[in-house]
C-alpha cells in the first residue's frame, strides 16, 4: 500500500495527525463542563472569545476543499475561480451587520440552530422544518467534499493508489474518518475549536513559505504570468476548432468581459449563502458576545489574503511545469516537487487537518438541526437536554458516515455537483432568516412557498446546465432569464423566491390568514452578554458576575 511513499513525508504527516488526534480527545476536558447538553456539546458552551472564534470560524469557512479547489480552477485556466477572493471580502460586512442580531435573539431564547429562530419568530414548524432540512441537505455534500480534498492529498503522497484492493486503497481515509468521528462524538464543538489552532498555524506557515519561496524558484511573478499566458494562448490556438464547436472551454488568466456578471454574481451569491450554512451559524453562536462577532468580521479577512495568494499557486504550478490529470492535484503536487520532504509532510498534514475541522463543525451543525428541528419538533416534544445531546452525538456519526458512503459509492463529480446545488439550496433559506431578523412583514406561508419555488427552480436550472464533460449539473451559471448574460443560478432562484414571497404575502394578508405568534421581542435583537435571559453562567471559566 505504501511502497512508493517517501518515508520522511509520511513520518511528519503521521506525527502531526496523531498530535491533533490527541488534542481532539483532550478537548473534552478543555473549559470543562457537562457535555450532556446541546449548549455545551453543540456550541462549546457559547463562551468562545475573539481569539478562539477567529481560529474556529476561520477553520470553518476556509476549508481544505477551498484550498484545493480554488487553485485548481486557475490551474485549469478558468480565472472565474478567483471569485473566491471577492466572495470572502463581501461576506464580512454582511456578517458584521446581520449576525449580531441573530446572536442576541438566539441567546435570549436558547436557539441552537437557524431553524430554531425561524420557529420562534414565525411560529411555524413547517417553515422551520424546511429550513432545517435544507441545511442538512446542503451540508452533507459539503462534508463529502472535505473527504474528496483529503483523498487528493493522500493520492499525491502515494498512499492508497498502488494496491488492487478497494478496501486497502481507502483504508487511510477510513482511519482518518473513524478518528474524526470518535473525537467529535466525545468532545463536541470543543474538538474542532482546539484542533483549529494547529490547523490554521500549519496552513499559515505552509502558504506563507509557499508564496515567498516557490515563485522565486520558478523565476518570479513576471515570469510566472508570462509563462501562464503563453501556455493558455497555445492551448487556445491548438484547440481553436474544439472551442469554436463548444467542445472545449478557452483558457484565460483573467475573466473575459462576458464573464464579469458571472464573476460578480458568484461572489455575491456565495457570500449570501455562506452565513446561511448551519456550520457558520454554529461557529457564530458559539461566541461569547456580540462584539466577538464584529471584531472577527474585521479580523477574519486575514484568511482571505491567504486564499488569494494560495489561488495564484495554481498559476505557479503551471509555470513550474507541474503536469497532473486532475487539476485538484496541482497544488499538492507542486508542494511535493518544490519542498523538501519534511516540509511537504507538514503541508499535506495541514491540508488534511484542514479537512477535519470543517467536517467536524458541519456534522455537529447538521446534527443540531436534526435534533432541534426534527427530533424535538416532531418526534419527542418533551426531550430533555440530555436526550438532545445524545441524539445529536449519534446523528453527527450518521451524517459523517453518510458523507463517507457518498464519496466512496458515488462519483466525485456527483459530490461536486451536489455541493453546487447545496449553495443554490441554502440561499433559499435567507428570506426566512435574514429578513426575519428585521421584520415579520413576510407571511410565514408566503416564505414557505417562496422557499419551495426557489428550491425547485434552482434545481431545475442546474439540471439543465451541460458542460463539455457532463450533460447535467455541468456548472453554476445559466443565462439570466430574457438575456444572454450568464449569472449564478443561486441568485436567480433567490430572486424568484423573493418575488413569490412578497406577492403571496399581499395575497395571504388580504385573505387574513393566521400569522402565528411571534415569540421574540424587539429588545431581544439587541441583548448582550449579562442582560436578563442571556446567561453568563455559560462561560465556564468565569463565575457568574465575578
Amino acid at each position: 500500500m505504501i511502497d512508493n511513499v517517501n518515508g520522511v513525508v509520511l513520518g511528519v504527516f503521521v506525527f502531526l495527525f496523531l498530535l491533533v488526534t490527541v488534542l481532539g480527545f483532550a478537548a473534552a476536558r478543555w473549559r470543562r463542563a457537562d457535555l450532556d447538553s446541546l449548549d455545551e456539546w453543540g456550541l462549546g458552551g457559547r463562551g468562545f472569545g475573539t481569539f478562539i472564534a477567529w481560529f474556529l470560524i476561520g477553520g470553518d469557512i476556509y476549508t481544505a476543499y477551498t484550498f484545493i479547489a480554488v487553485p485548481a480552477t486557475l490551474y485549469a485556466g478558468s480565472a472565474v475561480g478567483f471569485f473566491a477572493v471577492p466572495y470572502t471580502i463581501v461576506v464580512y460586512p454582511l456578517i458584521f451587520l446581520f449576525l449580531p442580531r441573530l446572536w442576541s435573539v438566539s441567546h435570549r431564547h436558547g436557539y441552537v440552530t437557524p431553524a430554531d429562530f425561524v420557529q420562534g419568530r414565525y411560529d411555524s414548524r413547517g417553515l422551520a422544518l424546511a429550513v432545517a432540512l435544507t441545511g442538512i441537505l446542503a451540508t452533507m455534500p459539503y462534508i463529502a467534499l472535505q473527504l474528496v480534498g483529503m483523498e487528493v492529498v493522500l493520492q499525491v503522497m502515494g498512499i492508497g493508489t498502488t494496491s488492487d484492493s478497494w478496501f486497502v486503497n481507502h483504508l487511510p481515509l477510513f482511519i482518518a474518518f473513524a478518528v474524526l468521528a470518535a473525537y467529535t462524538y466525545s468532545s463536541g464543538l470543543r474538538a474542532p475549536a482546539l484542533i483549529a489552532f494547529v490547523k490554521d498555524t500549519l496552513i499559515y506557515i505552509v502558504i506563507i513559505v509557499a508564496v515567498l519561496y516557490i515563485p522565486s524558484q520558478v523565476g518570479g511573478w513576471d515570469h510566472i504570468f508570462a509563462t501562464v499566458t503563453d501556455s493558455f494562448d497555445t492551448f487556445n490556438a491548438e484547440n481553436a476548432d474544439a472551442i469554436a464547436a463548444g467542445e472545449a472551454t478557452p483558457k484565460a488568466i483573467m475573466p473575459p468581459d462576458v464573464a464579469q456578471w458571472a464573476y460578480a454574481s458568484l461572489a455575491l451569491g456565495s457570500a449570501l449563502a455562506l452565513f446561511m450554512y448551519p456550520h457558520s451559524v454554529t461557529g457564530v453562536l458559539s461566541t461569547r458576545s456580540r462584539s466577538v462577532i464584529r471584531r472577527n468580521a474585521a479580523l477574519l479577512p486575514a484568511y482571505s489574503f491567504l486564499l488569494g495568494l494560495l489561488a495564484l499557486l495554481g498559476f505557479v504550478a503551471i509555470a513550474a511545469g507541474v503536469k497532473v490529470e486532475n487539476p485538484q492535484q496541482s497544488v499538492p503536487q507542486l508542494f511535493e516537487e518544490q519542498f523538501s520532504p519534511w516540509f511537504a509532510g507538514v503541508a499535506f498534514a495541514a491540508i488534511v487537518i484542514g479537512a477535519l475541522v470543517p467536517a467536524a463543525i458541519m456534522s455537529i451543525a447538521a446534527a443540531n438541526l436534526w435534533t432541534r428541528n426534527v427530533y424535538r419538533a416532531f418526534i419527542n416534544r418533551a426531550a430533555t437536554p440530555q436526550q438532545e445531546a445524545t441524539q445529536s452525538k449519534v446523528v453527527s456519526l450518521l451524517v459523517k458516515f453518510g458523507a463517507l458512503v457518498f464519496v466512496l459509492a458515488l462519483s466525485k463529480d456527483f459530490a461536486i455537483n451536489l455541493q453546487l446545488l447545496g449553495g443554490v439550496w441554502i440561499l433559499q433559506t435567507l428570506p426566512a432568516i435574514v429578513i426575519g431578523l428585521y421584520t415579520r412583514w413576510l407571511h410565514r406561508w408566503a416564505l414557505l412557498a417562496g422557499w419551495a419555488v426557489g428550491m425547485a427552480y434552482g434545481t431545475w436550472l442546474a439540471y439543465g446546465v451541460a458542460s463539455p464533460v457532463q450533460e447535467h449539473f455541468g456548472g453554476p451559471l445559466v443565462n439570466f432569464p430574457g438575456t444572454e448574460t450568464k449569472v449564478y443560478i443561486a441568485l436567480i432562484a433567490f430572486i424568484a423566491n423573493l418575488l413569490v414571497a412578497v406577492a403571496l404575502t399581499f395575497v395571504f394578508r388580504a385573505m387574513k390568514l393566521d400569522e402565528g405568534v411571534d415569540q421574540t421581542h424587539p429588545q431581544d435583537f439587541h441583548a448582550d452578554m449579562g442582560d436578563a435571559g442571556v446567561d453568563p453562567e455559560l462561560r465556564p471559566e468565569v463565575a457568574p458576575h465575578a
Partner: protein
Amino acid sequence: MLIIALLAPAVAIPLWVPLYDRVDPRLGGFPFFFWFQIAMIGVAVVLTSLALVVAAKVTRLDRVAHGLSPEPPDAS
C-alpha cells in the same frame, strides 16, 4: 446609517468587476486584476475596523432605545 455607509464600499467595489478586470497597471509582476483584489482585502479590513468603532457608539444608543442599560452588564 454611518455603519452602512462605511461598509457599502467593501461590498460594492469587489462586485464592480469591470472596474478591475484589466491587466495594467501591473504591480510587482501582478496584473491589476489580481493585486487590486488582494489590496481590497486591506481596504475592507480598514473600513470594517472603522465600522467597529462607530458600532460601539450606535450599540449604546440602540440598547438605551430598547430599554437596556447602556453597557452590557457583563461586557467582555
